[in-house]
């Protein structure tokens, strides 16, 4: 009885994001699929509605489902003091948690053209890009080259090193988040180059996907993040 009421108290104090689960899971937070701020077809013809729907409803959802599962198993293992299971679960958490983190950013990185998708960055981010890369075109060229050359599955990122206040281009393999390339790196823009992100439309021609996606890149979001880190 006392246990139950303490569980309830703890869960309530965690705030709006908590979900009340069975007492066994106590204060474990579960994650759910964020809504897209636009329709599946709104990014056409750069990215097809078919791809957006599969990407969001199947791939991202699966990462979330498996992430939640791994977290629950981790929670149990921690409670039992089962260190070898705790360690064993790290790769599942990295894959699936990373998948959730990365895709959540990705949906915000995109916007329909009529809502500003493709509009070049202005203000401080625009200036930083010109300073660091010479021009927006040069940045795009570099990112596309890195994205095209990535072997297998992964992401290409425009990030900012919040310590040095410097822009960086990085790639990460599989679902590794940008922070795995440097603890001070904050993602501004990520482009998913897993084949599922473009195959139904572009097939093996990843460079065409990379060329076209810039038409729907949401620089407003990237600017917001940049200003927050470098204000």
């Amino acid at each position, binding site marked *: 009885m006392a246990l139950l009421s303490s569980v309830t108290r703890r869960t309530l104090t965690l705030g709006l994001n908590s979900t009340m689960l069975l007492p066994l899971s106590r204060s474990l937070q579960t994650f759910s699929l964020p809504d897209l701020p636009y329709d599946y077809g709104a990014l056409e013809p750069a990215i097809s509605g078919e791809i957006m729907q*599969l990407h969001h409803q*199947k*791939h991202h959802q*699966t990462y979330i489902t498996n992430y939640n599962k791994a977290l629950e198993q981790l929670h149990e293992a921690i409670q039992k003091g089962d260190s070898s299971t705790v360690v064993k679960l790290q*790769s599942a958490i990295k*894959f699936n948690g990373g998948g959730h983190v990365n895709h959540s950013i990705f949906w915000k990185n995109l916007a329909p053209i009529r809502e500003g998708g493709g509009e070049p960055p202005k203000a401080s981010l625009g200036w930083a890009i010109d300073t660091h890369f010479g021009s927006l075109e040069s940045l795009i060229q570099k990112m596309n080259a890195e994205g095209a050359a990535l*072997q*297998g*599955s*992964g992401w290409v990122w425009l990030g900012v090193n919040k310590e040095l206040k410097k822009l960086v281009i990085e790639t990460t*393999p*599989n*679902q590794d988040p940008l922070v795995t390339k440097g603890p001070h790196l904050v993602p501004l823009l990520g482009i998913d180059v*897993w*084949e*599922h992100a473009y*195959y*139904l439309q572009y*097939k*093996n021609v990843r460079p065409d996907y990379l060329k076209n996606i810039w038409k729907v890149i949401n620089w407003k979001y990237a600017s917001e993040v940049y200003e927050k880190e470098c204000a």
Partner: protein
Amino acid sequence: MAATTSMVTSLTFTIPSLGLRLPTRSYPCLKPQRRFVRKAASNVITATYELKAPPYPLNALEPHMSRETLEYHWGKHHRTYVENLNKQVVGTDLEGLSLEDIIIVTYNKGDILPAFNNAAQAWNHDFFWESMKPGGGGKPSGDLLDLIERDFGSFERFIEEFKAAAATQFGSGWAWLAYKANRLDVENAVNPWPSEKDKELVIVKSPNAVNPLVWDYFPLLTIDVWEHAYYLDFQNRRPDYISVFMEKLVSWETVNTRLEKAKARAAEREMEEERRRKEEEEGKPTNEEEDDDLEMYVDNDNDDSEAE
């Protein structure tokens, strides 16, 4: 370790037949398969690797694997690996080597060199097309089935494990059934415990372009789990693709043939090592422990082999 290379553009190694030196160990199966093509514009001979067609028409695996998938997967992806490999190899020390040799050399013990991805993917895809056939699936028989049952408990358990490996290879990669003839003879060590347990079937999964050749296993079967292999037909449903592959596409005859070759090569290697070990012993200076052995070997005209 001799000649472990960090050079990007040229490697120094020797292969006996070509007057090139290999890093560390020797490869028993070294037969450089050179296909020579005389360039039209010059008198220079260049070696090229060819895109081999699958052993069946591109629509022959329907409805389990669509013609469209084969057109892109073989006609674009596989073709691009081969073309890019040729561009990477021409004019370098890799030119003229067999595909397998390039793979081993450029794997470079994990510190992979630029040509590895294209070379390994060219090989992997050849191997993959040949692992399938129209009207495939079903169950293996004979030696292969016996070994599967011995090493996995049952055919069903094997299927379960293989499917799990293929489903859990995160990102791009491959799942494999391979024959492992476990020898510890990297450098000059010899496996001190040769036994039947060494020669066993294993299931392994590998990322991106990596394949079991780099671990000195004999690959027997593979499934490509890069998304391009199944996305047109199955989208995100990789487990469905894997099931269809096992039930309808696997060519067990091919797997069986490969197993026979693997066992034969493993036996050859064993004899090679036996022979080499004996030669080394002969060459050693005699000491009291070795005297008896040496004498026995030398006085071999006796039929009785009595130990002192």
